[in-house]
């Protein structure tokens, strides 16, 4: 194969740019979403929180991993560095110091932001389809395997 000269590289580069430019132009929304994702991703060192005992520290650790950052949606509060996530971590810290239980803090959050703020959906009648669908589908699969339709 002939070795590629400098001009070939330039042509290649120009073609890539030509191809990519309209895509980039159209996808400003995607770019915005990516930017948001970047803001959420580059998490700075978490502000050190002090607790009265190791149990509270563990409670904080657990809760911030179970609560969704509403701005970065698929990240937990522990992972996110969005300003709202920082504020909510501060709030949770204050509530833990006030000796609130996990359930009380979760109620506090869902009263304000709705159930969506919990990364793990609640086990309620409304969510029953969500919880039981996987088991039901496995059951159905087994049923079809072991229940021959022939007489």
């Amino acid at each position, binding site marked *: 194969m002939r070795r590629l000269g400098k001009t070939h590289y330039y042509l290649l580069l120009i073609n890539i740019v030509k191809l990519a430019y309209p895509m980039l132009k159209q996808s400003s929304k995607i770019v915005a979403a990516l930017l948001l994702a970047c803001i959420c991703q580059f998490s700075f060192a978490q502000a050190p929180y002090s607790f009265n005992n190791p149990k509270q520290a563990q409670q904080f650790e657990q809760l911030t991993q179970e609560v969704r950052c509403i701005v970065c949606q698929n990240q937990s509060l522990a992972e996110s560095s969005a300003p709202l996530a920082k*504020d*909510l971590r501060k*709030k949770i810290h204050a509530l833990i110091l006030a000796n609130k239980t996990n359930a009380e803090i979760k109620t506090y959050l869902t009263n304000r*932001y*709705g*159930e969506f703020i919990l990364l793990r959906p609640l086990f309620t009648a409304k969510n029953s389809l969500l919880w039981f669908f996987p088991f039901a589908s496995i059951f159905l699969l087994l049923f*079809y395997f072991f229940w021959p339709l022939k007489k």
Partner: protein
Amino acid sequence: MKLLVKCLPVALICALVGVLWHQLFYAHPYEIPSPLLSRPVPTFELTTLHGPFTTFNNKDLEGKLKLLVYWATWCSACREEHPILMKISERYQIPMYSIIYKDEPAAAKDWLAKHGNPYRKVGDDNKGDVAIDFGVYGTPEIYVISEGKIVYKQIGAIDEATWQDTLLPIINQYR
């Protein structure tokens, strides 16, 4: 019957794919339904930007229909929305209140002096504490409040179309 049983898995999978397809392309995951709807306005007390009143609290929002706007000068969507809010206050005579979210009071004052102030009172929520009680997560947010209860929450900037098609019908319903 046999056919029905045979088709059931296929139908189920089609339904599942349909739901996922809808959620992926047509749902608005950023618009989270607020649990505050039809509940009383959270209690709060903030200092105001302008006189003659020095405080703004939940009691100011009791009575007839009012709008509460959560905004900030650092939020570009809020700045874009401002002319429409000005128009609304001039055209419809709806009492409008606002709270600035984690903003410099001086910057907000400047902005309102330059571009017009549609609000009766502007509260200063510099720590974002009251915002948590309101469930604010994306400024600007507009709360429609009637008889001290939140009846609707609009997330994100509005334009003329959103005002005419969404907000105004709701407002007329409660006015």
